[in-house]
């Protein structure tokens, strides 16, 4: 039972990878990529979790209270904000490519036109 978070994270990673490989639409591909990224958030937070511990915010609790790990939370929260901007970059690449090739199917866009 204690393996469940890691199992779910691994499952999400491979389901997202399956979506990326078999995608027929670049927008669908970008969202599957964000699913893969969210699997890493689950792994990070699951590593930092302690039983019967509270959030690492010392407002109203004693300074020696048992808290979860703050380092993985710091890594994850910046990651979430950055990932959406990178997804926007991928989507703008898609929009630009649609303007030239008139399709968003990865298999129809074969070679770079000369």
């Amino acid at each position, binding site marked *: 039972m*204690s*393996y*469940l*978070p*890691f*199992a779910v*994270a*691994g499952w999400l*990673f*491979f389901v997202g*990878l*399956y979506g990326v*490989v*078999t995608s027929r639409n670049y927008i669908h591909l970008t969202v599957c990529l964000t699913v893969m990224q969210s699997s890493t958030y689950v*792994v990070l937070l*699951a*590593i*930092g*979790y*302690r*039983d019967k511990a509270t*959030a*690492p*915010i*010392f*407002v109203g609790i004693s*300074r*020696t209270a048992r*808290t*979860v*790990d*703050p*380092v*993985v*939370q*710091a*890594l994850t*929260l*910046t*990651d979430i*904000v*950055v990932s959406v*901007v*990178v997804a*926007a*970059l991928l989507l*703008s*690449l898609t*929009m*630009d490519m649609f*303007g030239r090739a008139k399709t968003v199917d990865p*298999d129809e866009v074969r070679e770079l036109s000369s």
Partner: protein
Amino acid sequence: MSRRSRIGLFAATAPIFAALVFWGLAGLPDFGHYNHPYGKLLSRAAPVDRHTSNVVSATTFDYRGFDTLGEEFILFASAMGVALLLRDVRDVESRRPYDRVEDDAVQLLGILMVPVTVLLGLWLAAYGYITPGGGFQGGVVLAGGLVLLWAAGRYRAYRAASPIPLVELAEGVGAGGYVVVGLAALVSGAPFLQNLFGPGHFGTLLSGGSIPFLNWAAAIEVAAANVLLYNEVFEEYALSLRSRR
């Protein structure tokens, strides 16, 4: 590579890769039995050394401030990439469409909620190192207030509220301000991004040393990058409106 060979490669190698990944994940400590000394040390040290009650923000902007610098520059580069990609076939600004929301109830909601959202974003950014929040979250909510102005109001009001040179200047100030605070520590003989100022009073806005400055630099940069992003996105939408008429 063709679709069939791509799927064939995936079907052949994914089970092996998955087996390795799941076996590796099984080698981690059990869920709930976290035992690394670094996190425990930071939770003990941050309220004492820096007088900040939000240890996660202290970690983001002080103990792991260098990683946040890298993340901010990813944000900066991505916003610049979007602007480069979507800006080339844009015509002059005088032919902006007059696109406004017709419904009165939606406009009233927008008028009421835009100042609330901006205030919420400012509060999240300002009290980020005391209660949950921080520069990153507050910056996105600030940009969200501007989105609300566009979605429940007029396109021209949105354009008037976010002039592009000012937003680009704000983004540069945010990213550069972070580096300047770090360099100030370097100039005074300490390592880069060392916390220079005194800790202050625990639980008030005057705490954390250089954390408030880095926090606000990050908030300004995230808000400006998001506004630039949405601006490109709204321009594309306005372009599609114009071609429809």
